């Protein structure tokens, strides 16, 4: 089955104030929503992985030429809202299903329990090999 990465950024949903302005209950409801959703995805046999990343404050940028010691800098960084905050990997029947799940992730509640509609990036994960023996033997990949 194809795998998809569903990534959420630090971008706020449309018209949603930053989390620093939410009540503790609203924050808790927001976090609980992810917990329930992930349990659902385990129960449906689709969740492969879920990962939350630390924020830009802890990030460094490293460059290297392969000979001298790597150079570590504190930037320049993309805008905070473009940073990936976390992701899930799901193993699903189809892209439609991945998009359906991404829709649920995006609907995570914010202030007043209203869905934040956070943008979710949906990316297909590369397979390790062509998945079809018949195609595998077609001249496309095996010929020439």
């Amino acid at each position, binding site marked *: *089955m*194809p795998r998809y990465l569903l990534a959420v950024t630090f971008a706020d949903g449309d018209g949603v104030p930053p989390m620093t302005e939410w009540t503790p209950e609203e924050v808790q409801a927001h976090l609980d929503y992810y917990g329930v959703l992930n349990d659902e995805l*385990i*129960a*449906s*046999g*689709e*969740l*492969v*992985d879920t990962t939350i990343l630390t924020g830009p404050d802890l990030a460094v940028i490293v460059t290297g030429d392969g000979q001298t010691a790597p150079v570590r800098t504190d930037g320049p960084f993309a805008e905070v809202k473009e940073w990936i905050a976390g992701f899930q990997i799901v*193993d699903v*029947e189809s892209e439609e299903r991945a998009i359906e799940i991404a829709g649920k992730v995006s609907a995570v509640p914010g202030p007043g329990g209203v869905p934040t509609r956070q943008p979710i990036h949906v990316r*297909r994960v*590369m*397979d*390790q*090999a*062509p*998945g*079809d*023996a*018949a*195609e*595998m*033997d*077609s*001249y*496309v*990949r*095996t*010929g*020439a």
Partner: protein
Amino acid sequence: MTHAVEELSPRIENLLRTLAPRVLGVLARRCGDFAAAEDAVQEALLAAAGHWPREGVPDNPHGWLIQTAHRRWTDHVRGEAARRRREETATLLEPPPDTAPVPDEDDTLTLVFLCCHPVLAPASAIALTLRAVGGLTTAEIAAAFLVPEATMAQRISRAKQRVKASGASFRLPPPQDRAELLRSVRHVLYLLFNEGYATSSGPALHRVDLSEEAIRLARLLRRAVPGDAETAGLLALMLLTDARRTARTAPDGRLVPLAEQDRTQWDRQRIAEGSALLAGAIARRAVGEYQLQAAIAALHDEAPTAQATDWPQILALYVLLEQMTGNPVVTLNRAVATAMVHGPSEGLSVLESAEAALKGHHHVDAVRAHLLELSGEREAAAALYTAAAAHATSLPERDHLTKKAAELRSGNR
């Protein structure tokens, strides 16, 4: 528990996996509940994997497993009964009378029909089949598909619930329903075999070989329906394709094109077995898509060199296969075979004439690029290889296409 399984001697492992579907058959008939019986057998297998290496294999391993599984099942029912505080469930605990013996082949068939039931999505059917018929543990199946064990456990348990909800029971379906069910079983095994390709190059430590599993299960199925030509054709296809496996991957993991493979590395025994099976199947005069695919694979396998490949025959088989399936992938293959027989421009016109059907298929660019390359149109070919690489969903495929484009641009081949 999985550690015990990994350290099993091949002898015990084989014994357990051969006995698994037979034990499940007996238990499912006794209990009348496939889902619960399957859980009980899985627990019995894990218990055996823990005990037998230390205490020795019992004199009657089959009986040991049935007894252990039955005990687990009884415990389970008792637990349920206690929970519900319902007296009447206790009648279930009476040891049921042994039903008349049923041939193992019938049990195997009943099992695969349930596990590959058309109500199941292929991924669920594959997982359930590997566990119930293949005798693999949930941990092994999860590792093979690179998903967490909890996720795989849920996938299997949901699959069983679905089968149960569909009203199917552990009974051999009436003969008139079997052809359709067999079709669904063959499709599941075919997908499982392909899955072996898809996972064969990942991190492979302690991973079950899924193509090998598919072959093993196809053998079991064939034994249960020895007269079925398409089932023999499917097994032949698997053997004839798998014979090239070693030659297909370079030591660095790169795909080796068919024309460049070291043919001395092909598994002659598999080819002989596959060819014999295919000949027997074709003699039954019930041609089907797996037999045709197997026949194409056999023609490649039998060619002493890539140049000696019998392309006119392969082309004729693709024409038949296309008429039978209407599958666009087959059309792409026919275009390539046409190019090999009649030249690249003829191949390109096949693509043109089938443009509507092929629209959006992500391999069209790659095939067209290949045919343009054969016609000497290097620049156009390079551009299409690049476009094809951007649509690729598999890593080796993307690498291959990117390299083809680079080779054409830099002017060396």
